[in-house]
């Protein structure tokens, strides 16, 4: 198929607006997949993706479309991940396209991710085709949607296609618009071969498989290529297209989307957004937009059963094969034993990894408090990046601590604004901008410390707005804040797993809560055990573990000392299985409960 009749596009939408359903309809309508083979939501192939209605990996597919005007078109649909944590991935998938269908739920209207995704698409210079989906719903409000398109996104309402992915309404119009409105592949006559890597997966038989968009030139098995970011040599073993199953072809040519099988052993070596070119006649410049992804959120991950350490290690290794954004290194905690410090793109990424380790790899794990990366300027003039409270230098050595912020766009019903602003305030955020979306919805633009949204911000936003609030964010700058490391001391010994970095003004409250919780959870002890929260050397909260009142067996016969001693030995062994903190035995359960409930 010639370039003039090739189109590369993706579908972008807020979660649940119907992206997957529409993709399935397009596949059916172009008979790419016979209707009988359709599984509902074909493209979300991981269980977890299906369950949570999110797409984590991109799923490209090529479709042949017979246009009404006559010519056949090759339409390459590149499904994108659908969550803010993966916005760089989204931007790379979009970079592989010339156009995007912007899907809006007719009943919901424009939401936070709609805006974020539309901005991403515009910044890639994509042609946007607005589609109002779910027009079959009685609650569909077309006027509102069209008005929001114009007011918020500056997209002319008359461009919009009205559709129902569920009932197959508007599907042909969409296919027609894709072929007619989206331009043919760009930058095809650039001098030298350039392929954009927009995703990669690990296949246990074939090794690393890269998903590529060929911008210029040709790529085929036997080629020796290089990655332009770091000059890594890549041998091409096989190339092919997605139907959506992988289908081997002789070559991949400019303007097309497909896969390449390489000699590379780990996806970690292949950087998303990198440009692949021929070793012999390399292109001069990379494709635009490449950047290194860095994890934003860190947490210690420990096997519940210390014997599962090797299993956890293997599980992380397997996940990492397919997920270059996951980073980890071994660490050990006095309280939790051996485990790993893991870095994630964001909270969802963290949750997904955690779930997959539990479900797909059968390892029970506990995660410590998530932490962001703090930039610490020391009195000696150094700058340290600290992702674990345990590594925070002592207060005397700190000149300043800076924390990462985010710029959040929060879409909410107008009547919830007071509560949401209070929440933003509580989380040390400021609202920089308010915009009316329509007569019942507002968009707030807020700057918040990333640290503050890690735990419950999103859940609380949802509950305050009765489920109608939505949020998207982009990474903001580092800013200075009055942060302190808070230690939790059990019987005067600091317990590493409970250390955290908190804002000074919130320290006392949080410290008290933690102490209370611990005092409740730690089983009664023989001695009076203080639980304290401390900043530097200063105690800011204190509780005492309940005293054990009775532990005596009545009988201790003469002929029975051995039996009695065995019982005591058993108690002693039981004690060994607990984590010893000074004289106190804390059952691992207690750690888990405290970490869970916070």
């Amino acid at each position: 198929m010639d370039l003039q009749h090739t189109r590369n596009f993706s579908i972008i939408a807020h979660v649940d607006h119907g992206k997957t359903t529409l993709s399935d309809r397009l596949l059916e309508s172009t008979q790419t997949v016979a209707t009988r083979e359709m599984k509902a939501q074909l493209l979300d192939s991981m269980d977890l993706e299906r369950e949570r209605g999110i797409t984590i990996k991109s799923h490209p597919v090529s479709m042949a479309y017979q246009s009404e005007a006559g010519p056949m078109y090759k339409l390459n649909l590149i499904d994108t991940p659908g969550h803010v944590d993966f916005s760089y991935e989204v931007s790379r998938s979009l970079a592989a396209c010339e156009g995007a269908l912007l899907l809006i739920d007719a009943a919901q209207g424009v939401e936070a991710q709609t805006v974020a995704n539309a901005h991403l698409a515009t910044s890639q210079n994509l042609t946007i085709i607005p589609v109002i989906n779910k027009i079959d719903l009685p609650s569909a409000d077309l006027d509102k949607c069209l008005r929001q398109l114009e007011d918020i996104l500056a997209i002319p309402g008359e461009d919009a296609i009205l559709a129902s992915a569920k009932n197959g309404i508007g599907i042909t119009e969409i296919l027609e618009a894709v072929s007619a409105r989206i331009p043919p592949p760009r930058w095809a006559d650039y001098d030298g071969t350039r392929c954009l890597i927009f995703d990669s997966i690990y296949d246990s038989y074939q090794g690393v498989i890269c998903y590529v968009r060929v911008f210029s030139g040709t790529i085929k098995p036997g080629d020796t290529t290089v990655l332009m970011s770091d000059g890594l040599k890549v041998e091409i073993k096989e190339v092919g297209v997605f139907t959506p199953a992988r289908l081997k072809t002789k070559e991949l040519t400019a303007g097309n989307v497909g896969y390449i099988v390489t000699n590379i052993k780990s996806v970690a070596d292949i950087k998303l957004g990198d440009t692949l070119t021929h070793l012999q006649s390399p292109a001069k410049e990379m494709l635009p937009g490449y950047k290194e992804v860095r994890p934003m959120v860190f947490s210690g991950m420990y096997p519940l059963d210390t014997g599962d350490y090797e299993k956890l290690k293997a599980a992380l290794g397997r996940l990492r094969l397919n997920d270059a954004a996951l980073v980890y290194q071994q660490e050990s905690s006095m309280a939790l034993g051996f485990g790993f410090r893991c870095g994630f793109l964001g909270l969802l990424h963290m949750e997904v990894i955690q779930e997959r380790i539990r479900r797909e790899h059968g390892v029970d794990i506990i995660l410590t408090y998530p932490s962001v990366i703090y930039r610490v300027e020391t009195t000696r003039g150094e700058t340290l990046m600290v992702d674990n409270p345990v590594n925070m230098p002592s207060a005397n050595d700190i000149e300043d601590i800076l924390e990462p912020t985010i710029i959040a766009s929060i879409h909410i019903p107008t009547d919830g604004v007071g509560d949401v602003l209070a929440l933003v305030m509580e989380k040390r955020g400021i609202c920089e901008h308010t915009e009316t979306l329509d007569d019942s919805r507002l968009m707030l633009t807020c700057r918040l410390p990333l640290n503050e949204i890690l735990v419950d911000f999103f859940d609380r936003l949802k509950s305050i707005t009765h489920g109608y609030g939505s949020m998207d964010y982009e990474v903001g700058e580092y800013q200075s804040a009055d942060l302190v490391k808070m230690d939790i001391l059990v019987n005067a010994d600091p317990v590493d797993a409970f250390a955290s970095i908190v804002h000074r003004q919130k320290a006392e409250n949080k410290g008290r809560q933690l102490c209370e919780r611990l005092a409740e959870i730690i089983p009664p002890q023989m001695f009076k055990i203080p639980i304290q929260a401390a900043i530097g050397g200063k105690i800011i909260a204190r509780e005492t573990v309940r005293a054990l009142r009775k532990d005596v067996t009545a009988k201790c016969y003469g002929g029975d000392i051995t039996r009695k001693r065995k019982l005591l030995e058993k108690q002693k062994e039981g004690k060994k299985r607990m984590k010893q903190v000074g004289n106190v035995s804390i059952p691992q359960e207690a750690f888990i409960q405290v970490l869970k409930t916070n």
Partner: protein
Amino acid sequence: MKTPGTTSSLSVLPPPLDGEPLGLYVHVPFCGTTCDFCAFHQQTPKKGEVRQYLELLARETLLAPLERPVDTIFIGGGTPGLLAPAQIRELGKILGEAYGLPREEWTVEMTPASATPARLAAWKDIGVTRISMGAQSFQPHYLEKLGRMQPREKIFEAFSTARRAGFENINLDLMFALPGQSWEEWEADLREVVALGPEHVSTYCLTFEEDTTLWWKLSRGEIRRDEEREIEFYRETPQWLASEGYFRYEVSNYAREGFACVHNVNTWKMGEWVGLGPSASSQQGGWRGTNRSGLDAWGEDLEGGRRASADRFPVTSLTRALDRLVFGLRMAEGVEEKVLTEILRLAENPVWGSFWEKLQEEGLVGTRRGEGRRYHLSEEGFLLADRIGAEILAAGE
């Protein structure tokens, strides 16, 4: 004879125990019924089994010769009381031929139901000096709850039968903190026991040991434990009994002046004792071990010339000192200073010293001066005796 566990360096063994009190414990594994609280090894005797038991016991005495006279004998079970008078006499003959009469005390345990005049006469004849009977409760509905099939009248009857048989040292066991029991009900039991006037009273807080019927009931939620009540009973009982002339000399044991159970006290002080019969434990000659349970397994060992082959290990000076402390602390007289000095010298764990101090600081252990300083548990400490024991072992080893 070389036994497993004794091959390690002999230098760690304590000095010979000559001069330490020597006790003999004889386990009679038979019991008529299984009480709901009892986790001891026992079996209802089948035909010929008592015969077999006595033969094996005779054989075991041959494997356990003693070079010095025994101070005490304690025959426990099961219910030794279940033996017929002729069997009792035979048992007496076996023990007498092997060891002679004990110098200080000879106790037999029995249930009130088995305390017939003929049996008591037989026990008296062979030299028994002390009878220990499990009354448990005087309240019919609690007796029933404990799975104890004896009418309360049986207790009175058995007690007077024992007196008539000439026993001047009698113990009665009682149980408290029974499911639903109030302090008043417990006090009523105490009053009844005091009215009978035994020389010795043991009061056991009801425990729920694994695999007992009560334990099952507890885990199924059919009965509930009330720890606060247990604590109350534990605290109040010593005062109550003291005002009646029974003094607490151990966590669960009370006696009139001069009637503490010598055998048990010697054991708690970690003297030597030789255990005969299935599942009996021995501490002798620098090792500790337990006979295998069940007539067959026990017999098989004896056949092969082995005794106390289960859980056999050498008792090092440190183990012995720690056990002296752990079990000695359960007694009112407490533990001599020199036991502590010994532990401090031998324990490798650097926290030992501070741990011991902490116990005193927190008021769980107190000191008393008599001939030299002695350590004993406080009232709170008594209630935590097990935990303290476990911690002592953990810190000391």
